């Protein structure tokens, strides 16, 4: 009698499994990461303690982590809503740049003496609109000509990056600081900067968390969300039910772009304070895809995942001070992604180990279809 594992798909795992599997994935990633750190001649426990201390232990480390988590929550949401609908928007990066360009432009153009809340509302909305339009450039060809959005959104990233670089490095644009001796963006007025909560942490985190909760609620509880879920599940069935499938596709991509655009606006208003291509082009859009994937495209799940990944990134410089290469951070990120993806298998399938050979149901599932 040999032991044999049998695997059967399951629709929805019990909540215990849903808690245990991701936790086990994280632990496994930490263990493997620890082995690699040890092999590189460093103390793994020391490294992990440093990560925890520098990112999560205490108010100041936490504010640094949350500050970085803010754009990651937004780009994570951008990816989550699009990917859920099987629209592969990998243009979060470019949509974020365009959000930053328009937000900083508005901040410089609007008279600086208008009330701060109005100013901030204007630049956040402006950033959202810019991101939505940028995503729309890919959405409309997708909806009407079935142009592959993977290609179009990816290519638009480069266009946006070049445009942003041109504004600062290639021209004497409205965005550029004319007095500075080296090319840099003009600083936005005080009224356009996001107020701070504690240390460098600004109120953008509130916007991000509210966006996540709002999106979660919209998807679950509104007729619009119902349509989005139906279309993402089955275009045929949605069309059959009389829904406008193309307009849902376009609107979801626009919302996705708007979220990335808001991330850009908030980065400008809360952190960078000017249009600075080198700081903004730090792959926040792409990291958002990782955030969304690890969160299994769940809008609320995006929040803790973004915080976790932000914490890892923030600890990089502290690791460096210990003599541990900061690349370890990327390694850990990759491992977490890998193990969470592997854990997905255990969520989707029930694995039982039996000592006798189980009887496999034969055939095609019972219907003798001709």
């Amino acid at each position, binding site marked *: 009698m040999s032991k044999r594992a049998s695997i059967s798909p399951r*629709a929805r795992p019990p909540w215990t499994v849903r808690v245990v599997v991701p936790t086990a994935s994280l632990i496994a990633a930490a263990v493997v990461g620890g082995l690699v750190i040890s092999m590189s001649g460093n103390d793994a426990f020391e490294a992990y303690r440093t990560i925890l201390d520098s990112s999560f232990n205490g108010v100041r480390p936490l504010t640094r982590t949350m500050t970085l988590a803010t754009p990651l929550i937004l780009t994570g949401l951008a990816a989550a809503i699009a990917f859920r609908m099987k629209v592969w928007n990998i243009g979060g990066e470019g949509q974020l740049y365009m959000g930053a360009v328009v937000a900083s432009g508005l901040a410089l153009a609007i008279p600086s003496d208008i009330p701060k809340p109005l100013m901030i509302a204007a630049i956040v909305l402006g950033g959202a609109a810019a991101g939505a339009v940028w995503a729309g450039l890919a959405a409309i060809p997708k909806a009407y000509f079935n142009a592959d959005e993977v290609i179009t959104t990816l290519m638009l990233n480069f266009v946006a990056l070049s445009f942003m670089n041109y504004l600062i490095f290639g021209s004497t644009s409205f965005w550029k600081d004319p007095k500075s001796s080296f090319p840099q963006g003009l600083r936005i007025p005080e009224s356009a900067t996001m107020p701070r909560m504690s240390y460098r942490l600004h109120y953008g985190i509130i916007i991000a968390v509210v966006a996540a909760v709002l999106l979660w609620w919209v998807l679950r509880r509104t007729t619009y*969300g119902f349509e989005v879920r139906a279309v993402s599940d089955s275009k045929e*069935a949605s*069309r059959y039910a*009389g829904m406008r499938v193309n307009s849902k596709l376009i609107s979801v991509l626009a919302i996705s772009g708007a979220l990335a655009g808001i991330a850009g606006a908030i980065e400008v208003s809360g952190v960078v304070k000017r249009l600075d291509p080198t700081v903004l082009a730090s792959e926040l859009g792409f990291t958002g895809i990782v955030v969304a994937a690890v969160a299994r495209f769940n809008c609320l799940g995006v929040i803790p995942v973004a915080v976790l990944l932000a914490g890892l990134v923030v600890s990089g410089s502290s690791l460096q001070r210990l003599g541990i290469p900061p690349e370890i951070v990327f390694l850990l990120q990759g491992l977490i992604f890998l193990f969470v993806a592997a854990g997905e298998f255990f969520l989707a399938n029930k694995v039982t180990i039996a000592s006798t050979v189980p009887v496999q149901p034969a055939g095609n599932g019972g219907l*003798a279809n001709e």
Partner: protein
Amino acid sequence: METTTKAGQEILQVRELTKSFYGVAANDNVEFSLHRGEVHGLLGENGAGKSTLCSVLAGLYRPDSGEVWINGRPVQFRSPLDASEQGIGMVYQHFRLVSSFTVAENMVLGLKGRDRTVSLGQVEGKVRELASRYGLDVEPTAHVWQLSVGEQQRVEILRQLFRGAQILILDEPTAVLAPQEADRLFDAVRQMADQDHSVILVSHKMEEILSNTDRVTVLRGGRNVGTLGTSETNAAELAKMMVGSEHLPEAIQQVVGQFADKGLVLSVRELEVEGDRGTPAVDGASLDVVAGQIVGVAGVAGNGQREFQQAIAGQRQVAGGSIMLGGRDVTRLGSASGSRSGLAYVPEDRLGTGLASGMTLEENLILKGYKELPYSRYGMLRPRLIAARAEQLVEDFDIRGSRSGLPVSLMSGGNLQKAILARELTRPHDLLLAASPTRGLDIAATAAVRRHIRADAENGGAVLLFSEDLSEIIELSDRILVMSRGRIVGSYTPETLDIGELGLLMSGAKVHG
């Protein structure tokens, strides 16, 4: 039972083959024999067990009981590879070719061991030789994606011949072909038979079987109801064998014509609709459905039924003609325009069209009504009212097997169909359009579905029923139409019904007058 037309030697024999799926016998003590050098037709309605028999022969399924003998020796297939080694090659309806590979590369795909080490040049040579020998012209260096559907099918056949198949099983080979291509295919089939190959031709098109086979075996309900010499039979006899004439009189008695002459609910005139490949699928079809009446459209699948239904439902563009629904011209209006609010539609494809497979039963039950009171207000869903509605429908329509939070794809076919009916019939509607509503369902679910359809008509609804199950059409309909090649070619009332003639019309033959 058996008539030998050609003094061929028996190459394949099936003895008392039974294969059940979850207690339902798809093949029930089937006897079947195949001679060397013959083309043997396998005829039957959907669900008659043709595919199951072929799948057993191709090594895809293992029989529950019974034996397969080849050249006088019993064989057992553990996999399609075993069947292939015994010289059985199957050409499926859906081709299994790698489109970015060349024809020759597809030939060696999946070969094991020594066979794989031949040079591509040698393969190409052999393909050319086989192609000219059987009249299966294909350029071996062409990539599969460059080929037409007919050419791809030839590649599939060549692949089996390349592997040394003596027995070829062609599963509905003409379903994907244009008429000229079909003629070419049958020429090749004849050449194969002349060169001592045996061909099993699976089809539900009677005409095809009659003009291209030596013998024909008819399956019904998983049983062999007879093997005949093709030249000794005719379409009417085969139609009766396929449908089973014994339960006809009773079925007709059940039809109670409730001709309440109310308004005309659906009026279709000279409808023309294109199929997926841009060819005319519906070609000037006209019909009327009156309130309180069930109109049944019989016909072999692929004669424009699907396109017709989709046009009625506003999901496919109309190329010509007109559709009046509830007194309104909806010819040019799509389903999203709200023009189909008076239509209850039970589509053929339950999971995927009728239902969103990944959503829950509750959600699927409001798939059409989610924007209306009381299920939503001001754009917000009202979960408690939605759940209450679901509870009510589950009880009224006896929908079983749903668990809250789980996708409907886990439910059985019968319960899925009940769910669709529950949603569609409880919405205000003038017309019920039902496509193959009982296909694949068990007896109890079938009875329930038919009861709901009949009740709908009795309540004054107009019903347009499409089905390949002729007995279902006869049992339910007040008027029976026949659809063939995109046209309505026959019209009967239960009293004037002539089953033999109807079978002929279904098969595409012309009937005098």
